């Protein structure tokens, strides 16, 4: 069982500098062909200062930093038992290439179902930019199946 003492645990801040080349790679990986996501001129025509990060991109912050991996180690969840249960985003201001986004997560809940056969960890995060503005809120539910 995952120790419920981790409820309230704050993960170390993850700092993600948003780079054009990474966004272009991400667009390629998801098959995005809208030039707003790959061509700076098209992004500016659409009203963005630079290439916008697609809606789900900020999930990368805690993967790049290693915070996600450290959390799994702390909670003793092996990757063979790991599933992504839910993911949510609330959006406030756009994150674009040139911005630096900082994601700070807290473990907000841990619970189980089916007499412990499935354990759930809920992580909520705030993503802010270099101006201190709230960019997005993220909610992740990870599942450990036994």
């Amino acid at each position, binding site marked *: 069982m995952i120790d419920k003492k981790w409820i309230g645990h704050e993960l170390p801040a993850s700092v993600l500098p948003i780079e054009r080349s990474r966004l272009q790679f991400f667009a390629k990986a*998801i098959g995005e062909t809208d030039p707003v996501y790959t061509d700076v001129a098209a992004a500016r025509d659409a009203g963005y200062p630079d290439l*916008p990060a697609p*809606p789900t991109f900020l999930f990368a912050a805690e993967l790049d930093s290693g915070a996600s991996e450290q959390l799994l180690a702390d909670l003793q969840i092996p990757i063979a038992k790991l599933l992504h249960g839910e993911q*949510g*985003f609330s959006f406030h201001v*756009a994150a674009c290439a040139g911005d630096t986004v900082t994601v700070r997560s807290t473990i907000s809940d841990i619970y189980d179902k089916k007499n412990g056969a499935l354990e759930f960890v809920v992580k909520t995060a705030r993503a802010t930019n270099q101006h201190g503005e709230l960019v997005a809120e993220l909610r992740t539910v990870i599942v450990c199946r036994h």
Partner: protein
Amino acid sequence: MNPPTFDSVQVGDALPPLQPPPVDRTTLALFAGASGDHNPIHIDIDVARRAGMPDVFAQGMLGMAWLGRLLTAWAPQSRLRRFDARFQGITHLGNAMRCSGTVVEKLEQAGERCVRIELLSANQFGQTKIVGEALVALP
């Protein structure tokens, strides 16, 4: 296609569906690199088999990113207020996903006129892999 407006959109309207190519290993490898999700279970068949899986399988966030493409192809991303997904099944190699969205409600939220959209990602066998919901503010 003109961008949708609050008045032009009706409950029951379907967003133009998105049908990415069937999931293959190259896509999973590229997404691992681009997304930062280096979990080898999605890219290394040996790791997947040791975990009891028949083969590698898609990252959940790849399927969610495709639903994101569905939304931003319909309305500019700057209008997207909320985007939630529940992963209901594993997306396997060869799965050809159909991503769809339906307007289910018109509402006002935080002083903005919005539509609530139900999202679905299902494979060619009709098996649901992701259900989701989005809130989009419309002019």
